[in-house]
Protein backbone atom coordinates (compact mmCIF):
# COMPACT_ATOMS: atom_id res chain seq x y z
CA UNK A 1 0.00 0.00 0.00
CA UNK A 2 2.84 2.32 0.80
CA UNK A 3 4.22 1.86 -2.70
CA UNK A 4 0.84 2.74 -4.19
CA UNK A 5 0.66 6.02 -2.33
CA UNK A 6 4.21 6.68 -3.36
CA UNK A 7 3.17 6.20 -6.98
CA UNK A 8 0.25 8.54 -6.58
CA UNK A 9 2.03 11.21 -4.63
CA UNK A 10 5.07 11.14 -6.87
CA UNK A 11 2.69 11.71 -9.75
CA UNK A 12 3.47 8.54 -11.68
CA UNK A 13 2.30 9.50 -15.14
CA UNK A 14 0.89 6.13 -16.01
CA UNK A 15 -1.16 5.78 -12.85
CA UNK A 16 -2.69 9.20 -13.42
CA UNK A 17 -3.30 8.46 -17.07
CA UNK A 18 -5.11 5.24 -16.19
CA UNK A 19 -7.17 7.11 -13.61
CA UNK A 20 -8.03 9.83 -16.09
CA UNK A 21 -8.96 7.23 -18.72
CA UNK A 22 -11.31 5.47 -16.31
CA UNK A 23 -12.92 8.74 -15.36
CA UNK A 24 -13.23 9.86 -18.95
CA UNK A 25 -14.77 6.60 -20.17
CA UNK A 26 -17.22 6.34 -17.30
CA UNK A 27 -18.34 9.95 -17.46
CA UNK A 28 -18.74 9.85 -21.21
CA UNK A 29 -20.65 6.61 -21.23
CA UNK A 30 -22.90 7.71 -18.35
CA UNK A 31 -23.57 11.00 -20.14
CA UNK A 32 -24.24 9.32 -23.45
CA UNK A 33 -26.62 6.92 -21.72
CA UNK A 34 -28.37 9.91 -20.13
CA UNK A 35 -29.11 11.60 -23.44
CA UNK A 36 -31.74 9.06 -24.52
CA UNK A 37 -32.13 7.52 -21.06
CA UNK A 38 -33.52 10.46 -19.12
CA UNK A 39 -36.20 11.42 -21.66
CA UNK A 40 -37.14 7.76 -21.98
CA UNK A 41 -37.42 7.41 -18.22
CA UNK A 42 -39.54 10.56 -18.06
CA UNK A 43 -41.86 9.28 -20.77
CA UNK A 44 -42.23 5.93 -19.05
CA UNK A 45 -42.96 7.67 -15.75
CA UNK A 46 -45.49 10.15 -17.06
CA UNK A 47 -47.23 8.31 -19.89
CA UNK A 48 -49.64 5.48 -19.44
CA UNK A 49 -49.42 2.95 -22.23
CA UNK A 50 -49.87 -0.75 -22.81
CA UNK A 51 -46.95 -2.88 -21.71
CA UNK A 52 -45.55 -0.18 -19.46
CA UNK A 53 -45.22 -2.50 -16.47
CA UNK A 54 -43.61 -5.19 -18.60
CA UNK A 55 -41.15 -2.64 -19.96
CA UNK A 56 -40.25 -1.50 -16.44
CA UNK A 57 -39.74 -5.09 -15.33
CA UNK A 58 -37.52 -5.79 -18.35
CA UNK A 59 -35.48 -2.66 -17.65
CA UNK A 60 -35.05 -3.62 -14.02
CA UNK A 61 -33.76 -7.04 -15.02
CA UNK A 62 -31.45 -5.47 -17.61
CA UNK A 63 -29.89 -3.49 -14.77
CA UNK A 64 -28.41 -6.75 -13.57
CA UNK A 65 -27.13 -7.73 -17.02
CA UNK A 66 -23.62 -9.23 -16.66
CA UNK A 67 -21.05 -6.88 -18.12
CA UNK A 68 -19.38 -9.67 -20.08
CA UNK A 69 -22.67 -10.43 -21.84
CA UNK A 70 -22.91 -6.82 -22.99
CA UNK A 71 -19.24 -6.97 -23.89
CA UNK A 72 -19.73 -10.12 -25.92
CA UNK A 73 -22.78 -8.81 -27.78
CA UNK A 74 -21.13 -5.51 -28.64
CA UNK A 75 -17.92 -7.34 -29.53
CA UNK A 76 -19.70 -9.56 -32.02
CA UNK A 77 -21.31 -6.46 -33.54
CA UNK A 78 -18.24 -4.27 -33.91
CA UNK A 79 -15.65 -6.92 -34.70
CA UNK A 80 -14.48 -6.67 -38.32
CA UNK A 81 -16.36 -9.90 -38.91
CA UNK A 82 -19.52 -8.37 -37.40
CA UNK A 83 -22.21 -6.20 -39.01
CA UNK A 84 -20.70 -2.93 -37.71
CA UNK A 85 -17.12 -4.01 -38.34
CA UNK A 86 -16.49 -1.43 -41.05
CA UNK A 87 -16.36 1.34 -38.45
CA UNK A 88 -13.26 -0.28 -36.99
CA UNK A 89 -13.91 0.81 -33.43
CA UNK A 90 -13.04 -2.44 -31.63
CA UNK A 91 -10.18 -1.89 -29.15
CA UNK A 92 -10.66 1.90 -29.16
CA UNK A 93 -12.04 4.20 -26.45
CA UNK A 94 -15.22 4.55 -28.52
CA UNK A 95 -15.88 0.84 -28.23
CA UNK A 96 -15.53 0.93 -24.44
CA UNK A 97 -17.73 4.01 -24.17
CA UNK A 98 -20.34 2.44 -26.42
CA UNK A 99 -20.42 -0.78 -24.42
CA UNK A 100 -20.50 1.02 -21.10
CA UNK A 101 -23.25 3.34 -22.33
CA UNK A 102 -25.33 0.29 -23.19
CA UNK A 103 -24.62 -1.03 -19.72
CA UNK A 104 -25.65 2.27 -18.18
CA UNK A 105 -28.80 2.86 -20.21
CA UNK A 106 -31.23 0.55 -18.36
CA UNK A 107 -30.07 2.01 -15.04
CA UNK A 108 -30.65 5.57 -16.20
CA UNK A 109 -34.05 4.79 -17.69
CA UNK A 110 -35.45 2.75 -14.85
CA UNK A 111 -34.06 4.93 -12.06
CA UNK A 112 -35.30 8.10 -13.78
CA UNK A 113 -38.71 6.50 -14.21
CA UNK A 114 -38.95 5.40 -10.60
CA UNK A 115 -37.62 8.77 -9.41
CA UNK A 116 -40.23 10.67 -11.36
CA UNK A 117 -43.06 8.45 -10.24
CA UNK A 118 -42.63 10.06 -6.81
CA UNK A 119 -43.76 13.30 -8.42
CA UNK A 120 -47.35 14.21 -7.54
CA UNK A 121 -49.59 12.71 -10.24
CA UNK A 122 -51.32 16.07 -10.52
CA UNK A 123 -48.06 17.89 -11.23
CA UNK A 124 -48.32 17.66 -15.03
CA UNK A 125 -51.89 18.95 -14.78
CA UNK A 126 -50.79 21.97 -12.75
CA UNK A 127 -48.29 22.80 -15.49
CA UNK A 128 -50.88 22.27 -18.19
CA UNK A 129 -53.43 24.58 -16.65
CA UNK A 130 -50.73 27.25 -16.29
CA UNK A 131 -50.19 26.98 -20.03
CA UNK A 132 -47.32 24.51 -20.47
CA UNK A 133 -47.16 22.42 -23.64
CA UNK A 134 -46.55 18.70 -23.46
CA UNK A 135 -42.84 19.18 -24.04
CA UNK A 136 -42.62 21.84 -21.37
CA UNK A 137 -44.40 19.48 -18.98
CA UNK A 138 -41.71 16.85 -19.58
CA UNK A 139 -38.88 19.34 -19.17
CA UNK A 140 -40.31 20.82 -15.97
CA UNK A 141 -40.87 17.33 -14.57
CA UNK A 142 -37.19 16.56 -15.08
CA UNK A 143 -36.21 19.81 -13.42
CA UNK A 144 -38.46 19.08 -10.48
CA UNK A 145 -37.04 15.59 -10.01
CA UNK A 146 -33.46 16.54 -10.73
CA UNK A 147 -32.36 14.87 -7.53
CA UNK A 148 -33.71 11.57 -8.81
CA UNK A 149 -32.34 12.18 -12.28
CA UNK A 150 -28.97 12.98 -10.83
CA UNK A 151 -28.92 9.84 -8.71
CA UNK A 152 -29.85 7.88 -11.81
CA UNK A 153 -26.88 9.26 -13.71
CA UNK A 154 -24.64 8.77 -10.67
CA UNK A 155 -25.73 5.19 -10.29
CA UNK A 156 -24.98 4.53 -13.94
CA UNK A 157 -21.57 6.14 -13.49
CA UNK A 158 -20.94 3.90 -10.50
CA UNK A 159 -21.92 0.86 -12.48
CA UNK A 160 -19.57 1.57 -15.39
CA UNK A 161 -16.54 2.84 -13.51
CA UNK A 162 -16.38 -0.37 -11.53
CA UNK A 163 -16.97 -2.80 -14.37
CA UNK A 164 -14.21 -4.76 -16.03
CA UNK A 165 -15.95 -7.01 -18.57
CA UNK A 166 -16.75 -4.42 -21.22
CA UNK A 167 -13.56 -2.42 -20.70
CA UNK A 168 -11.45 -5.56 -21.13
CA UNK A 169 -13.32 -7.17 -24.03
CA UNK A 170 -13.93 -4.05 -26.08
CA UNK A 171 -10.96 -1.93 -25.05
CA UNK A 172 -8.33 -4.65 -25.02
CA UNK A 173 -6.52 -3.13 -22.01
CA UNK A 174 -4.18 -1.22 -24.33
CA UNK A 175 -1.53 0.74 -22.47
CA UNK A 176 -1.74 4.54 -22.82
CA UNK A 177 -5.00 4.09 -24.69
CA UNK A 178 -7.78 1.97 -23.27
CA UNK A 179 -6.29 0.75 -19.99
CA UNK A 180 -8.67 1.64 -17.20
CA UNK A 181 -8.33 1.19 -13.48
CA UNK A 182 -10.28 -2.05 -13.54
CA UNK A 183 -8.42 -3.60 -16.45
CA UNK A 184 -5.15 -2.45 -14.93
CA UNK A 185 -6.13 -4.16 -11.68
CA UNK A 186 -6.89 -7.34 -13.61
CA UNK A 187 -3.49 -7.10 -15.33
CA UNK A 188 -1.53 -6.36 -12.16
CA UNK A 189 -3.29 -9.24 -10.41
CA UNK A 190 -2.37 -11.57 -13.27
CA UNK A 191 1.24 -10.50 -12.83
CA UNK A 192 0.99 -11.16 -9.11
CA UNK A 193 1.29 -7.44 -8.29
CA UNK A 194 -1.46 -7.50 -5.68
CA UNK A 195 -0.26 -4.37 -3.89
CA UNK A 196 -0.51 -2.25 -6.99
CA UNK A 197 -3.91 -3.77 -7.78
CA UNK A 198 -5.14 -2.92 -4.31
CA UNK A 199 -3.79 0.60 -4.61
CA UNK A 200 -5.56 1.15 -7.89
CA UNK A 201 -8.67 -0.19 -6.20
CA UNK A 202 -8.26 2.50 -3.57
CA UNK A 203 -7.96 5.13 -6.29
CA UNK A 204 -11.20 3.81 -7.77
CA UNK A 205 -12.93 4.09 -4.43
CA UNK A 206 -11.67 7.60 -3.79
CA UNK A 207 -12.70 8.63 -7.28
CA UNK A 208 -16.21 7.26 -6.94
CA UNK A 209 -16.55 9.01 -3.59
CA UNK A 210 -15.19 12.24 -5.04
CA UNK A 211 -17.57 12.30 -7.99
CA UNK A 212 -20.50 11.57 -5.71
CA UNK A 213 -19.52 14.29 -3.29
CA UNK A 214 -18.99 16.81 -6.10
CA UNK A 215 -22.37 16.15 -7.65
CA UNK A 216 -24.17 16.27 -4.34
CA UNK A 217 -22.46 19.54 -3.60
CA UNK A 218 -23.67 20.92 -6.92
CA UNK A 219 -27.24 19.83 -6.20
CA UNK A 220 -27.19 21.41 -2.79
CA UNK A 221 -25.82 24.68 -4.14
CA UNK A 222 -28.34 25.02 -6.92
Amino acid at each position, binding site marked *: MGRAFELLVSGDREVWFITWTSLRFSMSSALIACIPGIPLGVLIALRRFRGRRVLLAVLTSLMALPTVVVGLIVYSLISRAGPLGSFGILFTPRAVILGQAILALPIVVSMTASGLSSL*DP*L*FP*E*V*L*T*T*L*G*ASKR*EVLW*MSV*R*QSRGAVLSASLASFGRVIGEVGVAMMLGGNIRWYTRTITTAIALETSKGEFELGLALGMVLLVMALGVNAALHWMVRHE
Partner: protein
Amino acid sequence: MSSPSAPRLFEIRGLRARFDGRTVLSVDSLAIKEGEVTVMVGENGSGKTTLLRLLNGLITPAEGSVKFRGKPVPGEGLVAVRNESVLVHQSPLLFRGTVGLNVAYGPRIRGMRRAEAAARASAALRRVGLPGFERRRASALSGGEEQRVSLARALALTPRVLLLDEPTSNVDEQSRREIETIIREVSASGTTVIMSTHNMELAYRLCGRLLRLDAGVPAEVEENILKGRIERIDEQFAYFRTGDALLRCPARQGDFVVAVLPCDELILSRQPLDSSARNQLNGIVTELRPAGSLLTTVIDCGIPLKALITREAAAEIGVAPGAACVVTFKASAVRLH
Protein backbone atom coordinates in the same frame (compact mmCIF):
# COMPACT_ATOMS: atom_id res chain seq x y z
CA MET B 1 -73.97 33.36 -32.82
CA SER B 2 -77.27 31.81 -33.77
CA SER B 3 -79.07 32.06 -30.46
CA PRO B 4 -80.48 35.48 -29.64
CA SER B 5 -78.79 35.66 -26.27
CA ALA B 6 -74.98 35.50 -25.97
CA PRO B 7 -73.81 32.01 -25.07
CA ARG B 8 -73.28 31.31 -21.45
CA LEU B 9 -69.68 31.14 -20.25
CA PHE B 10 -69.93 27.41 -19.67
CA GLU B 11 -72.70 25.15 -20.88
CA ILE B 12 -72.79 21.49 -19.96
CA ARG B 13 -75.09 18.92 -21.58
CA GLY B 14 -75.49 15.23 -20.87
CA LEU B 15 -72.08 15.10 -19.27
CA ARG B 16 -70.76 11.82 -17.87
CA ALA B 17 -67.28 11.33 -16.48
CA ARG B 18 -66.00 7.89 -15.58
CA PHE B 19 -63.07 6.71 -13.56
CA ASP B 20 -62.12 3.03 -13.49
CA GLY B 21 -65.47 2.25 -15.10
CA ARG B 22 -67.39 4.04 -12.35
CA THR B 23 -69.45 7.09 -13.21
CA VAL B 24 -68.18 9.86 -10.96
CA LEU B 25 -70.01 12.79 -12.50
CA SER B 26 -73.36 13.02 -14.17
CA VAL B 27 -74.60 16.45 -15.18
CA ASP B 28 -77.64 16.60 -17.46
CA SER B 29 -77.65 20.34 -17.89
CA LEU B 30 -75.79 23.14 -16.23
CA ALA B 31 -74.93 26.65 -17.33
CA ILE B 32 -72.57 29.05 -15.63
CA LYS B 33 -72.87 32.76 -16.15
CA GLU B 34 -69.98 35.12 -16.62
CA GLY B 35 -69.05 37.24 -13.60
CA GLU B 36 -70.77 35.02 -11.06
CA VAL B 37 -69.27 33.20 -8.08
CA THR B 38 -70.43 29.60 -8.30
CA VAL B 39 -69.66 27.47 -5.27
CA MET B 40 -69.92 23.70 -5.25
CA VAL B 41 -70.24 21.77 -2.04
CA GLY B 42 -70.50 18.06 -1.46
CA GLU B 43 -68.88 15.03 0.07
CA ASN B 44 -65.41 13.85 -0.88
CA GLY B 45 -65.70 12.01 -4.15
CA SER B 46 -68.92 13.73 -5.13
CA GLY B 47 -67.33 14.91 -8.37
CA LYS B 48 -66.41 18.52 -7.56
CA THR B 49 -62.78 18.21 -8.62
CA THR B 50 -63.72 16.23 -11.72
CA LEU B 51 -66.13 18.96 -12.77
CA LEU B 52 -63.47 21.64 -12.34
CA ARG B 53 -60.97 19.60 -14.37
CA LEU B 54 -63.57 19.12 -17.12
CA LEU B 55 -64.28 22.85 -17.20
CA ASN B 56 -60.56 23.55 -17.66
CA GLY B 57 -60.30 20.96 -20.44
CA LEU B 58 -57.77 18.91 -18.48
CA ILE B 59 -59.75 15.71 -18.91
CA THR B 60 -62.12 14.48 -21.59
CA PRO B 61 -65.70 13.52 -20.70
CA ALA B 62 -66.84 9.98 -21.40
CA GLU B 63 -70.11 11.34 -22.76
CA GLY B 64 -71.74 14.69 -23.38
CA SER B 65 -70.14 18.04 -23.84
CA VAL B 66 -68.69 21.02 -22.07
CA LYS B 67 -68.86 24.23 -24.06
CA PHE B 68 -66.90 27.36 -23.31
CA ARG B 69 -68.32 30.44 -24.99
CA GLY B 70 -70.24 28.10 -27.23
CA LYS B 71 -67.26 25.98 -28.33
CA PRO B 72 -66.54 22.44 -27.17
CA VAL B 73 -63.82 21.73 -24.63
CA PRO B 74 -61.61 19.83 -25.22
CA GLY B 75 -61.74 20.73 -28.89
CA GLU B 76 -62.32 24.00 -30.62
CA GLY B 77 -62.73 25.86 -27.35
CA LEU B 78 -59.61 24.50 -25.66
CA VAL B 79 -57.32 27.35 -26.67
CA ALA B 80 -59.83 29.90 -25.39
CA VAL B 81 -60.44 28.05 -22.15
CA ARG B 82 -56.68 27.73 -21.57
CA ASN B 83 -56.15 31.40 -22.35
CA GLU B 84 -58.95 32.70 -20.18
CA SER B 85 -59.19 30.26 -17.29
CA VAL B 86 -56.85 28.61 -14.86
CA LEU B 87 -57.41 25.94 -12.23
CA VAL B 88 -55.87 26.17 -8.77
CA HIS B 89 -55.51 22.64 -7.45
CA GLN B 90 -56.36 21.68 -3.92
CA SER B 91 -52.78 20.92 -2.99
CA PRO B 92 -50.50 23.88 -3.79
CA LEU B 93 -47.89 21.77 -5.67
CA LEU B 94 -45.31 24.53 -5.82
CA PHE B 95 -42.17 24.04 -7.88
CA ARG B 96 -38.75 23.89 -6.34
CA GLY B 97 -37.04 27.24 -6.30
CA THR B 98 -38.21 30.68 -5.37
CA VAL B 99 -41.72 32.01 -4.94
CA GLY B 100 -40.98 34.44 -7.77
CA LEU B 101 -40.12 31.58 -10.11
CA ASN B 102 -43.40 29.86 -9.23
CA VAL B 103 -45.60 32.86 -9.74
CA ALA B 104 -43.88 34.03 -12.92
CA TYR B 105 -44.03 30.54 -14.45
CA GLY B 106 -47.42 30.96 -16.16
CA PRO B 107 -46.62 34.28 -17.84
CA ARG B 108 -43.16 33.03 -18.79
CA ILE B 109 -44.39 29.81 -20.34
CA ARG B 110 -46.92 31.83 -22.29
CA GLY B 111 -44.09 33.79 -23.86
CA MET B 112 -43.92 36.89 -21.72
CA ARG B 113 -40.54 38.59 -21.29
CA ARG B 114 -38.71 37.92 -18.05
CA ALA B 115 -39.01 41.48 -16.67
CA GLU B 116 -42.67 41.72 -17.58
CA ALA B 117 -43.42 38.33 -16.06
CA ALA B 118 -41.58 39.33 -12.90
CA ALA B 119 -43.70 42.48 -12.67
CA ARG B 120 -46.84 40.39 -13.11
CA ALA B 121 -45.65 38.02 -10.42
CA SER B 122 -45.00 40.86 -7.99
CA ALA B 123 -48.45 42.29 -8.66
CA ALA B 124 -50.05 38.88 -8.10
CA LEU B 125 -48.13 38.43 -4.85
CA ARG B 126 -49.37 41.80 -3.65
CA ARG B 127 -52.92 40.74 -4.48
CA VAL B 128 -52.63 37.71 -2.24
CA GLY B 129 -51.04 39.74 0.55
CA LEU B 130 -47.51 38.39 0.12
CA PRO B 131 -45.63 41.44 -1.19
CA GLY B 132 -41.88 41.00 -1.37
CA PHE B 133 -42.02 37.20 -1.21
CA GLU B 134 -40.40 36.83 -4.65
CA ARG B 135 -37.02 35.69 -3.40
CA ARG B 136 -38.25 33.33 -0.69
CA ARG B 137 -37.82 29.63 -1.24
CA ALA B 138 -41.10 27.86 -1.96
CA SER B 139 -40.05 25.03 0.35
CA ALA B 140 -39.80 27.42 3.32
CA LEU B 141 -43.42 28.64 3.29
CA SER B 142 -46.19 27.87 5.78
CA GLY B 143 -49.27 25.98 4.61
CA GLY B 144 -51.35 29.13 4.29
CA GLU B 145 -48.59 30.93 2.42
CA GLU B 146 -48.21 28.00 0.04
CA GLN B 147 -51.91 28.10 -0.72
CA ARG B 148 -51.76 31.83 -1.41
CA VAL B 149 -48.66 31.51 -3.60
CA SER B 150 -50.47 28.84 -5.56
CA LEU B 151 -53.36 31.30 -5.93
CA ALA B 152 -50.95 34.05 -6.97
CA ARG B 153 -49.44 31.71 -9.56
CA ALA B 154 -52.88 31.52 -11.18
CA LEU B 155 -53.65 35.23 -10.71
CA ALA B 156 -50.41 36.21 -12.44
CA LEU B 157 -52.15 35.07 -15.62
CA THR B 158 -54.95 37.63 -14.94
CA PRO B 159 -57.54 35.00 -15.81
CA ARG B 160 -61.11 35.89 -16.79
CA VAL B 161 -62.23 32.69 -15.11
CA LEU B 162 -60.70 31.38 -11.91
CA LEU B 163 -61.35 27.75 -11.02
CA LEU B 164 -60.57 26.91 -7.42
CA ASP B 165 -60.50 23.42 -5.93
CA GLU B 166 -60.88 23.55 -2.16
CA PRO B 167 -58.85 26.75 -1.78
CA THR B 168 -58.98 26.69 2.01
CA SER B 169 -58.36 23.04 2.81
CA ASN B 170 -55.34 22.49 5.06
CA VAL B 171 -55.07 26.12 6.13
CA ASP B 172 -55.76 27.77 9.47
CA GLU B 173 -58.62 30.13 10.22
CA GLN B 174 -56.49 33.23 9.68
CA SER B 175 -55.43 32.11 6.20
CA ARG B 176 -58.99 31.05 5.43
CA ARG B 177 -60.18 34.61 6.06
CA GLU B 178 -57.39 36.05 3.94
CA ILE B 179 -58.16 33.71 1.07
CA GLU B 180 -61.86 34.60 1.32
CA THR B 181 -60.98 38.27 1.02
CA ILE B 182 -58.75 37.60 -1.97
CA ILE B 183 -61.51 35.66 -3.74
CA ARG B 184 -64.01 38.42 -2.96
CA GLU B 185 -61.67 41.02 -4.48
CA VAL B 186 -60.93 38.85 -7.51
CA SER B 187 -64.64 38.44 -8.09
CA ALA B 188 -65.27 42.16 -7.57
CA SER B 189 -62.75 42.91 -10.31
CA GLY B 190 -64.99 41.04 -12.75
CA THR B 191 -63.41 37.61 -12.76
CA THR B 192 -65.76 34.65 -12.88
CA VAL B 193 -65.05 32.33 -9.96
CA ILE B 194 -66.04 28.67 -9.88
CA MET B 195 -64.91 26.92 -6.74
CA SER B 196 -65.44 23.85 -4.64
CA THR B 197 -65.25 23.73 -0.89
CA HIS B 198 -66.08 21.73 2.19
CA ASN B 199 -66.37 24.85 4.24
CA MET B 200 -70.08 25.82 4.34
CA GLU B 201 -69.28 29.12 6.00
CA LEU B 202 -67.00 30.06 3.10
CA ALA B 203 -69.52 28.72 0.60
CA TYR B 204 -72.39 30.82 1.94
CA ARG B 205 -70.32 33.93 2.31
CA LEU B 206 -68.85 33.85 -1.18
CA CYS B 207 -71.46 32.24 -3.37
CA GLY B 208 -73.62 33.94 -5.90
CA ARG B 209 -74.90 30.51 -6.64
CA LEU B 210 -74.57 27.41 -4.52
CA LEU B 211 -74.61 23.92 -6.00
CA ARG B 212 -74.62 20.74 -4.00
CA LEU B 213 -73.07 17.71 -5.65
CA ASP B 214 -74.39 14.40 -4.45
CA ALA B 215 -72.71 11.33 -5.93
CA GLY B 216 -71.80 13.26 -9.03
CA VAL B 217 -75.21 14.87 -9.56
CA PRO B 218 -75.46 18.64 -8.98
CA ALA B 219 -78.57 20.24 -7.53
CA GLU B 220 -79.50 23.74 -6.48
CA VAL B 221 -79.66 24.14 -2.72
CA GLU B 222 -83.18 24.50 -1.23
CA GLU B 223 -82.25 27.53 0.78
CA ASN B 224 -82.67 31.26 0.53
CA ILE B 225 -79.19 32.74 0.60
CA LEU B 226 -79.61 36.39 1.34
CA LYS B 227 -76.73 38.82 1.04
CA GLY B 228 -76.77 41.83 3.32
CA ARG B 229 -75.45 43.09 6.61
CA ILE B 230 -76.38 43.46 10.25
CA GLU B 231 -78.15 46.78 10.74
CA ARG B 232 -78.33 46.74 14.50
CA ILE B 233 -78.34 44.40 17.46
CA ASP B 234 -80.44 44.63 20.64
CA GLU B 235 -80.53 42.27 23.57
CA GLN B 236 -82.95 39.91 21.79
CA PHE B 237 -82.24 40.06 18.09
CA ALA B 238 -79.79 40.89 15.42
CA TYR B 239 -81.51 42.79 12.60
CA PHE B 240 -80.22 41.71 9.23
CA ARG B 241 -80.86 44.05 6.31
CA THR B 242 -81.22 42.38 2.93
CA GLY B 243 -82.74 44.40 0.12
CA ASP B 244 -85.94 45.97 1.38
CA ALA B 245 -86.43 43.37 4.08
CA LEU B 246 -85.23 43.41 7.64
CA LEU B 247 -84.93 39.97 9.23
CA ARG B 248 -84.87 39.23 12.90
CA CYS B 249 -82.18 36.77 13.72
CA PRO B 250 -80.73 35.34 16.94
CA ALA B 251 -78.53 38.04 18.48
CA ARG B 252 -74.92 37.28 17.64
CA GLN B 253 -71.92 39.50 17.22
CA GLY B 254 -69.96 39.06 14.05
CA ASP B 255 -69.05 40.22 10.61
CA PHE B 256 -71.97 38.51 8.90
CA VAL B 257 -72.67 39.01 5.22
CA VAL B 258 -75.15 36.23 4.53
CA ALA B 259 -78.40 35.07 6.07
CA VAL B 260 -79.44 31.55 5.17
CA LEU B 261 -83.10 30.62 5.38
CA PRO B 262 -84.07 27.04 4.45
CA CYS B 263 -87.01 26.93 2.04
CA ASP B 264 -88.97 24.49 4.22
CA GLU B 265 -88.85 26.79 7.25
CA LEU B 266 -91.24 29.29 5.64
CA ILE B 267 -94.95 29.27 6.55
CA LEU B 268 -97.34 30.85 4.05
CA SER B 269 -100.73 32.23 5.08
CA ARG B 270 -103.39 34.60 3.81
CA GLN B 271 -103.66 36.51 7.10
CA PRO B 272 -100.91 37.37 9.59
CA LEU B 273 -100.50 34.51 12.06
CA ASP B 274 -100.69 34.81 15.79
CA SER B 275 -97.61 32.73 16.62
CA SER B 276 -94.26 32.64 18.32
CA ALA B 277 -92.46 33.15 15.01
CA ARG B 278 -90.73 36.53 15.09
CA ASN B 279 -90.55 37.26 11.37
CA GLN B 280 -93.63 38.13 9.35
CA LEU B 281 -93.24 39.60 5.88
CA ASN B 282 -95.97 40.60 3.45
CA GLY B 283 -95.42 39.70 -0.13
CA ILE B 284 -96.81 38.75 -3.50
CA VAL B 285 -96.44 35.34 -5.10
CA THR B 286 -94.46 35.74 -8.31
CA GLU B 287 -93.77 32.16 -9.28
CA LEU B 288 -95.15 28.68 -8.71
CA ARG B 289 -93.62 25.54 -10.09
CA PRO B 290 -93.59 21.86 -9.22
CA ALA B 291 -90.66 20.41 -7.32
CA GLY B 292 -91.27 16.71 -7.10
CA SER B 293 -94.35 16.07 -5.00
CA LEU B 294 -94.12 19.61 -3.62
CA LEU B 295 -94.38 23.06 -5.12
CA THR B 296 -91.73 25.77 -5.13
CA THR B 297 -93.08 29.26 -4.81
CA VAL B 298 -91.25 32.52 -4.97
CA ILE B 299 -92.73 35.35 -2.93
CA ASP B 300 -91.55 38.91 -3.40
CA CYS B 301 -91.24 40.42 0.07
CA GLY B 302 -88.94 43.24 -0.95
CA ILE B 303 -86.56 40.40 -1.60
CA PRO B 304 -87.49 37.21 -3.44
CA LEU B 305 -87.97 34.33 -0.98
CA LYS B 306 -88.31 30.75 -2.07
CA ALA B 307 -90.63 28.44 -0.14
CA LEU B 308 -91.63 24.77 -0.43
CA ILE B 309 -95.28 23.92 0.16
CA THR B 310 -97.53 20.95 -0.49
CA ARG B 311 -100.06 21.07 -3.32
CA GLU B 312 -102.91 20.68 -0.82
CA ALA B 313 -101.75 23.70 1.24
CA ALA B 314 -101.27 25.77 -1.90
CA ALA B 315 -104.85 25.07 -2.96
CA GLU B 316 -106.25 25.78 0.51
CA ILE B 317 -104.68 29.21 0.95
CA GLY B 318 -104.93 30.11 -2.73
CA VAL B 319 -101.28 30.43 -3.65
CA ALA B 320 -101.13 31.61 -7.23
CA PRO B 321 -99.00 34.12 -9.09
CA GLY B 322 -100.11 37.62 -8.19
CA ALA B 323 -101.80 36.59 -4.92
CA ALA B 324 -100.84 38.43 -1.76
CA CYS B 325 -99.63 36.35 1.18
CA VAL B 326 -97.82 36.50 4.48
CA VAL B 327 -94.54 34.71 5.02
CA THR B 328 -93.77 33.70 8.59
CA PHE B 329 -90.60 32.16 10.02
CA LYS B 330 -88.83 31.90 13.35
CA ALA B 331 -85.83 34.10 14.11
CA SER B 332 -83.92 30.90 14.96
CA ALA B 333 -84.55 29.57 11.44
CA VAL B 334 -82.23 32.26 10.10
CA ARG B 335 -78.56 31.32 10.17
CA LEU B 336 -76.03 34.07 9.81
CA HIS B 337 -72.69 33.57 8.13
